[in-house]
């Protein structure tokens, strides 16, 4: 409208603060990247400016693949994340549909219960859960995480999908049922195809959370080759000598890369999943 900012004020009010934010938010990633591409010895050279790379090298990455369990960690993290996501999505679709569309005894109570479950943090449960896992003899196996991650994923994913299913007009389902579909068939043939964005958001949320999870993985996986990327990096790559920084940062960069890559294609879905929690539709 008339009277809005001039170019000079724009630079001051908009681009300068934006630049400051971007520098602040992205600096750690910049730092991690350049350290991973520098020979660790260079860190000791006092005359080198630490903010850029004087000598470019891939030796840290090579070390990572040849001398550590990093490849195992990648495999573990991938398998666990994919399977946990699949299980959680399946359960969440069923719960989401039940809460969105069906009236059954206890549905209100269960709905609140699911939401409260979202707020129960892993730090509250990890000690007794360790006992449970030990008693079930699942210690140090994939199952320890594949069965426990859904408890962190199902509540939010159900809630997200429930909200999504609600936006599909009831009339479409009623029409399908009049045409002869059972409820399960309408779920499969009508609701799910129409909910693809919601499913993608929920799937991305689940996958990211599994990849990032730390506490349960720390406690339940004790041996090197069974660890996930975050736990392995923290526990096995920080050594007594001071020469580990290069490979540590290389592992951190590589470990983040798949998520960042996934993210760049699905920004919309990340954002909608994130805001589903706080902004009403």
């Amino acid at each position: 409208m008339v009277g809005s900012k001039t170019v000079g004020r724009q630079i001051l009010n908009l681009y300068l603060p934006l630049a400051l934010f971007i520098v602040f938010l992205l600096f750690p990633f910049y730092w991690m990247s350049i350290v991973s591409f520098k020979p660790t010895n260079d860190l000791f050279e006092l005359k080198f400016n630490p903010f850029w790379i004087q000598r470019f090298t891939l030796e840290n990455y090579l070390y990572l693949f040849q001398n550590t369990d990093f490849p195992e960690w990648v495999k573990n993290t991938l398998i666990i994340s994919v399977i946990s996501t699949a299980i959680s999505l399946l359960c969440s679709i069923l719960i989401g549909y039940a809460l969105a569309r069906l009236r059954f005894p206890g549905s209100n109570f269960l709905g609140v219960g699911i939401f409260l479950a979202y707020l129960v943090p892993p730090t509250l449960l990890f000690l007794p859960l360790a006992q449970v896992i030990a008693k079930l003899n699942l210690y140090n196996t994939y199952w320890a995480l594949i069965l426990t991650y859904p408890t962190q994923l199902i509540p939010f994913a159900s809630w997200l999908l429930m909200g999504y299913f609600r936006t599909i007009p009831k009339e479409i389902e009623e029409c399908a049922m009049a045409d002869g579909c059972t409820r399960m068939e309408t779920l499969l043939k009508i609701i799910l195809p129409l909910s693809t964005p919601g499913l993608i958001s929920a799937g991305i949320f689940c996958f990211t959370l599994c990849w990032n999870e730390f506490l349960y993985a720390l406690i339940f996986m004790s041996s090197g080759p069974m660890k996930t990327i975050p736990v392995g990096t923290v526990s096995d790559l920080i050594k007594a000598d001071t020469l580990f920084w290069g490979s540590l940062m290389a592992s951190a960069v590589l470990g983040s890369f798949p998520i960042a890559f996934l993210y760049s294609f699905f920004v919309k879905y990340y954002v909608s999943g994130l805001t589903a929690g706080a902004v009403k539709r």
Partner: protein
Amino acid sequence: MIGPETVSRSRETFKRHGRWSLRRLLDRESSLGVILMIPGAFLLMLFMAYPFFLGIWLSLTDSMIGRLGHFIGFRNFIDLLHDSIFHQTVRNTFVYAMVTVPFKAVLGLGLALILTNRMRFSNPIRAAVMMPWIVPTALSALGWYMIFDPVFSPISWLLKSLGLVTKNVNFLGDPKLAIASVCLANIWRGIPFFGITILAGLQAVPHELHEAAAIDGANAWHRFLHITIPAIRGVVLIAALLSIIWTFADFQLIYILTKGGPANMTHIFGTYAYQIGLAATDIGQGAAIALYMFPILSVFAVLLLKYLRRE
């Protein structure tokens, strides 16, 4: 269309399958609802509800890892009340949560206000500012671990070359600086959540409201105060309550940066419970530490629920 074939088909179903068959159960709303909840409910029961109550039981015993203990009533809880490290832990956790959340909210609001403007490259920029939230915390924590390192910190290097300090700053090892450093990393990680959430709230405000206010005589500041703030108040509050709950129950960031030190100055409930329960194997007391979180979290959870219901 419901024709004679559909009617006779469902009659067939009834005749062939009887009242309690799976087919019939799947068709009735009330039974289907219960059936669909079962898989998820089973997992949540076994790995969330049961451990929760097991945790309560353990906190009332003197169990150690590997050895089941005896019932000792509230002794663990009372012992903790006399434990000076526990006092410090409680103080730290409140500082950690209550200091970082306002910073995250204000900075997030600032970021959101910047991002509402139409500008070139807005999509890549939005993608970029979300990175701290997206990247696995454990891994970005390692970045901060090095940024705060007593020998290799680039911040120290910068401060030294600008002549502001004479020797390296020990961000994580100095008992007075550690909690601030940890808070900084937490704020850094949390800004995108607030930023993107508040941005969505800002974009939900119909532009006619701003136009009506402009015609009524409001300048940019008035519009911010009377239109923008009331409109996003709900969103900010919900995000803040969620953030408080999450920060209270945090573990990763502190464990990786300081493990709770130096001198227990950065221990929070999660890390202290870990140290006592697993490292020192006193699982009974560890469970008690974790349970002390529960009433506080419940208060915030109830507030959140109430507020969400209202919106």
